[in-house]
């Protein structure tokens, strides 16, 4: 927890409303996101009870499993869900753009991508489980399911796995997206409650965030956002409804269960769209748009893989896949952190407080400074900046700046309030600096020891060449019949 975020929470306590932690939005928000609120039957690993899903705030689809322990009903639910999710997802495959690449063939990328919004982390985890429990099913054989079910499973798995990729926005958890931009006057643990979090950010007129958050803890007023349901609701409402269905299965009994879960889902549905509105109120940061481009690429690639008839995602990464994913995630994390700071002075502020970044006024500038002779002569402009920030940077530290993202500077000296630095990259080949390339005396500047430079990692062995230290080559994946026999209870 940075001192800045701590201070923002303190201010939220005093003012009674959440405080901004960001001036721009750090996640892309689709124009037509799909909200997905799943509920699970308590005590079961992945037995869906219901879901509210859709792209139109006024017209949610409600899907219900009137007896969640019934395997057939569960797969019927999955097929129904597929009927809503798949057309939405596949709709984005129609329009593509051609991406030119330096030194490689151009490729096609979808012009836009789907975006799923779930209430919180646990809904995200449940989405992953739902994907896991459906993607290995088959449309033929003794445990046949509707052909759309395994496809749905693979998409849900894709979305949920992608959500763990730093900076990705293909699947967002509302509580996390909101917490990234606002600090409440309660603890981070309590922020996991969507109703209470929104209560702080946007309290109803005449009340404080604290009051709204307290009210949000009453499951009778604000049912939990799922996938877990309120135990009181389970005991008093759901259990009798399910029992009635068991005793006399039929539309009326199913409707009773549906009405019961609707009362639990409706409030969260409305909250989800309020979350969308709140996030829309912030302008999108530059990096968020760039990351969405990567997301579109990832979406396109997965869709192609699916179209080519590739196998479902394995149960876990092999040694090589794990190492390669880790490298990608670490790289994404570093650039996500850097981009956020360069996009947003409030995010940068936290680094200024710890001395890893500073802002100040240029007091001296030598744009013509150069190093080397003849052909090796390179322009290395010198700057001296006066700052009130507590700079803790060692000589030689590489710095970036939000105003000139292509440049890199190096700390030459820190002397009290004066920081001297040298621009070492991004000056071009010219003999003199292009006008505006080097800050002038009197300019306000900001420099930070954050880099989103991409250094390609060394290559990994092919999976079939996994060395003996890591268990040797893994057995080839053969879809086992066991996969589709699992009872899913």
């Amino acid at each position, binding site marked *: 927890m940075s001192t800045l975020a701590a201070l923002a929470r303190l201010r939220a306590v005093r003012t009674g409303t959440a405080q901004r932690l960001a001036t721009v939005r750090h996640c892309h928000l689709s124009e037509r996101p799909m909200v997905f609120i799943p509920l699970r039957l308590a005590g079961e690993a992945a037995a869906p009870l219901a879901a509210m899903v859709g792209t139109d705030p006024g017209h949610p689809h409600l899907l219900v499993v009137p007896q969640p322990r019934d395997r057939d009903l569960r797969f019927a639910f999955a097929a129904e869900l597929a009927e809503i999710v798949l057309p939405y997802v596949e709709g984005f495959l129609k329009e593509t753009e051609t991406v030119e690449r330096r030194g490689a063939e151009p490729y096609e990328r979808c012009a836009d991508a789907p975006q799923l919004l779930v209430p919180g982390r646990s809904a995200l985890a449940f989405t992953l489980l739902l994907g896991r429990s459906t993607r290995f099913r088959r449309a033929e054989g*003794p445990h046949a399911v509707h052909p759309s079910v395994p496809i749905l499973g693979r998409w849900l798995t894709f979305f949920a796995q992608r959500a763990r990729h730093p900076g990705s926005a293909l699947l967002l958890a509302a509580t996390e997206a909101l917490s990234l931009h606002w600090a409440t006057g309660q603890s981070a643990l309590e922020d996991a409650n969507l109703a209470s979090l929104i209560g702080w950010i946007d309290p109803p007129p005449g009340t404080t965030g604290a009051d709204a958050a307290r009210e949000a803890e009453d499951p*009778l007023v604000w049912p939990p956002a799922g996938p877990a349901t*309120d135990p009181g609701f389970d005991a*008093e409402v759901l259990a009798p409804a399910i029992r009635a269905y068991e005793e*006399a*299965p039929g*539309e*009326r009994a199913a409707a009773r269960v549906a009405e019961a879960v609707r009362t639990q889902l409706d409030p969260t549905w409305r909250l989800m769209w309020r979350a969308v509105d709140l996030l829309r109120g912030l302008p999108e940061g530059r990096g968020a748009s760039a990351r969405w481009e990567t997301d579109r690429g990832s979406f396109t690639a997965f869709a192609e893989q699916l179209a080519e008839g590739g196998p479902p995602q394995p149960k876990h990464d092999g040694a090589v896949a794990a190492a390669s994913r880790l490298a990608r995630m670490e790289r994404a994390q570093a650039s996500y952190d850097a981009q956020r700071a360069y996009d947003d002075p409030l995010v940068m502020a936290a680094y200024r407080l710890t001395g890893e970044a500073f802002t100040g006024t240029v007091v001296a500038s030598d744009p013509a400074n150069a190093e080397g002779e003849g052909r090796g002569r390179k322009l290395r402009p010198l700057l001296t900046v006066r700052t009130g920030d507590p700079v803790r940077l060692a000589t030689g530290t590489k710095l970036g700046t939000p105003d000139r993202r292509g440049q890199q500077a190096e700390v030459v000296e820190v002397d009290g309030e004066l920081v001297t630095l040298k621009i070492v990259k991004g000056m071009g080949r010219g003999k003199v600096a292009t006008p505006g390339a080097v800050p002038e005396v009197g300019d306000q500047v900001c420099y930070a020891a954050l880099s989103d430079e991409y250094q390609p990692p060394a290559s990994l062995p092919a999976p079939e060449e996994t060395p003996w230290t890591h268990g040797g080559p893994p057995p080839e994946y053969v879809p086992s019949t066991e996969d589709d026999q699992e009872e899913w209870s």
Partner: protein
Amino acid sequence: MSERLDALEERINALRAEVRRAVRARDGALARSLRAELRGVERAWDQALADQEPPARETPSASEPDEAPRAGAAREPGALVPVREQVHQALTILGVPASAKMIVAVHGALRAGSLRGTQLASLRRDEERSFRSSPFARPYYLCAALTDRLSASRGLLTVSTWPLERRAIGPLSPRVDFLTTAIRVAEHILRLEEAGEPTPSGAERLLSRLAYNVPGVPVAPDAPPRPAMVVKAARAELEVHAGADADARARIADRARARLGDAERLFGGTILSLAREEAS
């Protein structure tokens, strides 16, 4: 929807909220009375709906073709045969002490019966009452299995006509009886096969379930285990335990014969007799 229905629904929602509030406040009495009121209003709602709509045609589900809607115990299919009779049938197939759950499963799988666990709950007590009021008036009683403390073993049912040795439960008896159950179920299926009758799918499922826990039964995906293999594998393990189990059971049976009266021998020793046993 009619106004009356709307009003009822509103009342239902309000009551549900009140019930849960009471539960959260740990006010059990209030919750119960509210719940009772709630059920009443729900019934009224159902009634109102039924008055309004033509009776809904509810197709019986395909898997249970003869399940009559909302039948009470007395009108259960096969209810022509009393519950104790059905339990007796199941126990006779098994030939070993069995839990209510196993009896229900076996009866369902092999006799296409639809016993429910709840129906067996008070069976042993009823049998004991009947025996105590007029001993040995019936040809058989459904009675208890005896632990090595000569008390009634929790949850197990036996038949009074069985020898005491079979009704006694030593440390290895649960395993021996489980293996015997697997053998009996497999043999029952074999007999059906020999008679050219189709094997009920429930029987196959039961056999798979049992066979899974018998070591040495070959598993083929998507196919039920072959009954003959189950018999063979279960017999192999049974061989290992049989001697020790028979000894232990015989010792318990001897003690029971020496120390328990007729009723206790059938329904288990009381605390008093246990204390005597302990003291001796």
